[in-house]
Each structure stands twice: as C-alpha cells, then as structure tokens.
C-alpha cells in the first residue's frame, strides 16, 4: 500500500489520540477513584494505529486489553468509551461492560477478560467474513502472553485449513505481567509459529508505524483476495507497568532496558519522519497535538460528569427477546 501525505497525517493523529486518552486514564487512576483496571499501552501506539487505521469500516478488529489506540483508530467514539470505562450510564453498555465493550457498528469484536479468547472469536468472525462474501477481513491483535494459550493453536489451525481472511497481529512487548517471554516460550520469535500453520509470518519493528501499517495492509489485501491468514509479529514495549493502580513489582526488568526502548518512541520517531519527508511542518503537528489534548480533556470531563447507571440496569439486558 502506498501511503499519501493524508494517510500519514491520519496515522500520526491516531497514535497521538491513543496516547492522549491513555495518559488521561493513567492520570485518572492516580488522582481519582476509577473502577476497574487500566493496562496502559503507552509506547505501543504504532502497532494499534498501524493495524487499525486503514481497515474498512466493515472490517473486524479484535482488541487487546492494552491501551486503546486501535479502537479509537477503528472509529470508536472516545468519550463514550471513556464513560463506559468509568462505569457511567452514558457508556456504550450503560456501564455494564467496562472498556472491553464497543459498538458493533465500529467493527470492534468482543474482547474477553480471559486472555487468549480473542483467537477463536476472530476465527469465527473470519468464517462470517468468508461466507457472507462482502470482502471483509478480520485483524486479531494479541499479546505475547496470549500466544501461550492453546486457543491460539486451535484458531490459527482452523483459520489456515479453512483459509479464513484473518490477520493475526502480535504485540510482542516481551512481558506477560512480569514474566519475560524467554521464560514462557521455547521460540524467540512468535512469527515462527506461522510455519506450523503453513501461513506467512513476518517480524516487524513495532515502533515504526509505517512498517506496521504496510505489513498489516499487505496481509489484509492478501486475505481480502481469498489467500488466507497471515501472522505479523510487532516487536514493541510498554513503558508503564502491567496495570495502573495495582501493586506490581518493577524488578522483573531493568531501568536500562526501559530507557533503551524509550529512545525509540513511536510517536517521536514518526514525527521526525514526517518532518524529514516534508509531509508536515512542526506547526501543523503541534496543532494536531493541541487539538487532541483538547478533545481528550473534553471527553474526560464529559465522562466524569456523566451519571451513574440506574440500579435497575443491573437486572436488564440478559436475554434478547
């Protein structure tokens, strides 16, 4: 895929939007009482933006629990998403689901609190996509920890033998909570798993948003053309600890490692790239940053001022009639 200047600006926007919402949640967790958990994706924005920005509206995206760059890039309304995360009546599910829930129309698939349940759900969306014949594609995001679940095998195998239009995109940030990948998997690269399912598997620099977008869109076009699934491993890193508000140890990784990765911040890198290529001026990018800061501020205020759901809501919506 050739990216126009507008495409690149959109990628930049989506990364910055993801980060600003994320920073806001981190701050909310630190300052006020927020229900639930927040797994910050700061540092990993290139993967979410690269994977989701150029999908069709009717393509499906399977989210992870980390950050929300991908969901916002897929078109989910940030203020209602935030309200849902805060458990408010104005959220997508009236506060009953939490941040895992997005409107079906946005093309975001159900995410499970059970890590690894994303795989078979994505395969199933792939079955629909293939049988309904509208050329839809499914992009399934998953972590390196999720890759350790058996659900990966059953689902990648099914997608491969049925040639389903699913693109498996791994956000390999090296850790599952505190466990380094080398403790948990016998392969160094998740992309190696692709051999077992007779599908292409590639390793991508997950801090380079253009590289991610290129690889994902190439696999998406392949899938759209009926050529089956692919696996893309994005090497990335989360800056913050596993979750906000919890007592997570810090000793499982070194400060040096953290600093090393932060030198290659995906937003800083891409900003420089846009400037170097003459795709944007610093003033233009600053204006985007400012606009998004404002958007998040307003969204957050709106979400925080939103009412709690009526207690009666706890007893509705179990069955469709």
């Amino acid at each position: 895929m050739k990216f126009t200047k507008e495409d690149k600006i959109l990628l930049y926007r989506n990364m910055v939007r993801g980060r600003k919402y994320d920073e806001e949640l981190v701050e909310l967790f630190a300052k006020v009482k927020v229900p639930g958990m927040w797994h910050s994706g700061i540092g990993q924005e290139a993967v979410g933006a690269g994977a989701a920005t150029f999908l069709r509206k009717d393509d499906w995206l399977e989210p992870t629990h980390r950050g929300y760059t991908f969901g916002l890039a897929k078109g989910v309304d940030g203020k209602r998403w935030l309200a849902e995360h805060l458990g408010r009546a104005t959220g997508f599910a009236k506060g009953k689901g939490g941040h895992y829930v997005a409107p079906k129309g946005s093309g975001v698939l159900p995410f499970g609190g059970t890590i690894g349940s994303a795989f078979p759900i994505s395969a199933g969306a792939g079955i629909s996509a293939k049988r309904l014949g509208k050329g839809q594609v499914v992009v399934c995001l998953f972590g390196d920890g999720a890759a350790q679940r058996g659900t990966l095998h059953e689902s990648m195998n099914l997608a491969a033998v049925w040639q389903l239009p699913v693109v498996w995109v791994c956000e390999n940030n090296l850790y599952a909570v505190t466990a380094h990948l080398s403790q948990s998997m016998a392969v160094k690269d998740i992309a190696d798993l692709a051999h077992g399912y007779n599908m292409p598997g590639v390793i991508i620099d997950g801090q380079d948003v253009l590289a991610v977008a290129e690889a994902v869109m190439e696999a998406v076009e392949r899938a759209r053309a009926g050529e089956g699934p692919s696996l893309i491993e994005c090497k990335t890193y989360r800056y913050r600890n596993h979750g906000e508000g919890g007592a997570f140890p810090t000793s499982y990784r070194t400060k040096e490692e953290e600093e090393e990765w932060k030198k290659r911040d995906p937003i800083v890198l891409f900003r420089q790239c846009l400037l170097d290529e003459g795709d944007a001026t610093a003033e233009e990018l600053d204006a985007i940053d400012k606009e998004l800061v404002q958007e998040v501020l307003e969204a957050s205020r709106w979400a925080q001022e939103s009412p709690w759901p009526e207690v009666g809501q706890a007893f509705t919506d179990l069955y469709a009639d």
Partner: protein
Amino acid sequence: MREISMREALKEAIREELLRDQTVHIWGESIESKGGGFAICRGLTDEFGERAKDTPLAETAIAGSAVGAAFTGLRPIVEIMFSDFAFVCGDEIFNKMAKARYVYGGQDGFSLPIVVRMKVGGYVSIGAEHSQTPLAPFMHAPGLKIAFPTTPYDAKGLLKTAVRDDNPVMFFEHILHYGARGEVPEEEYLIPFGKARVRREGDDVTVVAIGYMVDLALKIAEEMVQDGVSLEVVDPRTLQPLDMDAIMRSIKKTGRVIFVDEDVTCCGVPAELMARVYERLTEAGKPPVPMARVGAANVPIPYSPPLEKAVLPSPEKIAAAVEKVLV
C-alpha cells in the same frame, strides 16, 4: 401421522432451517464425513456445501468461532460431540456466550444467535468422560437458554425454535433417544421455549422428569398403576426458560412432587427446583408439600455396566422416591 426417529427429526429441523435462512450454518467434528458424532447431519454437506462443514478436533475453536460468527452475522449451529467435552470450551460457553449480551448492555440489537448441540446421557457404558448429563452447570450460567427434548416431535419443534432464537441455546440430545420413534407431522411447526408438557396425567404424585428420565418415569408410572398409585409426569422441555407455572399447577393437583434428573444429585437441577417450589408455596402463604429428588450418585459415572446401573437413576429408584412422598 408418520413416525420418524429423533435422529431424523433433528436432521429435518436443521435442514429446514438451513433452507429457510442463508445465515444458518452448521459446523462440528465429522459433520461432513459422518453427519457428526451421532450421524444427525448425514447428507447435509452434499446439499449445502460449506454451510455444513467438518472442523478440526478443536472444541475451543468450534465454540469460540460460533461466538465470533454469531457476533458478525451468521446463525451458527455447532455440535459438541459429547457434553463432557463442553468443559473443554468452558470459557467460550460460560464467559462469552452467556455473558456477552449483558456486558454489551443489549446495545444496538446485540444478540448471539448460537445453538450448541450436545449429546448427553449414560446407560451405555462409555465411561466417566462420555456419559455425563451436566445440566446444572449450564443452568447456573445466566444468559444461556437450555432445551432438552424427549420425543421426536419436541426435538424438531424445539430445535427449529432454538435456531431462530437470538440467544445462545444449549441443546441437549440423549444418546438413548436418537433411535426413539414418534409421530412428527409433515407440515412445519415450532414449539415455544418455556412451555412444559404433561406427558401423563395422574392424581397422587407429580413427577418432574428431565430428558431421558421422562422415559423412566413413564415406565414406572405404568407399573405403579397396579399399586393404585397414579403419577403425573411433567416434562419441562426447556430449563431456561422454565415453566414453573406448569409445575405448580400439577403440584396443586397432587400435593406431592419428586424431581428426577440424570445429573449428579449435588447442586443439581432438582435441588434448584425444590427450592423454587418451596419459595412459591411459602410466598403464597401455603404449607410446604412433600418433596423428593432422584439423581445420579455423587460419583463420576463408572464404566462397568453393573456399577453404572447402581449410580444412575432407575425406575426402581423413582418408585422408592414416590413411596417416600406418599407416606
């Protein structure tokens, strides 16, 4: 009226629904090559191509893909060969199918139209991991619907209703019922969920029997006529929704009730039903009635035939429970 087997009735239901609605699809192990675990779907692939398809041996992918497919526009029917294997895909059934609509707040017409067909039942000596009738675990999961037909007529009508239902339906088929024959009309019909059927009218004791237990209850009811005992056999047909009104109506008539279920007794469906009957009576200011339950012993289902027989419910055990509530 013509007589067909439950196997044929189930196949007719699936075939008619595949014909009616292009979004209905069925997948599971050996669907194409063998018609599924119990040959219900034989020939469907010839007629419907990839809409009736063999999956790899992968229960998690079977059930999980049903969730993804139902969310995105299909109405999948999936087959889990033995209900014992449902625990392999417990996350997909209990965490996803059951909870999804609720955690989505029912937004923009959210639904998960899935039918999970499962063979249940013992009495055929195939061991602890192929013989269970695990009804209670599913009834314990708000968000699931549960149907368990006992005649070919009910099987066809309930399965067609299940396919058209916008909720995940656990559809149980007893291994000893597949060959059972019964009257099934040629013309189309549906059986609504939540409507029990009185399979035999009687005056002395209400027997609420689930699944294959209806057969045992009808048998002992016949025999007990000689003892001057008249049993009323009620088949709930669906456990979620459950026709409590029909059960209470029968109890009002007989004044006594026993519950029969093939699942282990501990925390079984009868335990729940006994509690509900008690609550209904006390809430209405009425005295409690004599109640008893019959279920499998609290052990895994043993393999050896005499051991299995000792563990599972039998007409004799039902008779003993009847005697208990009669005194």
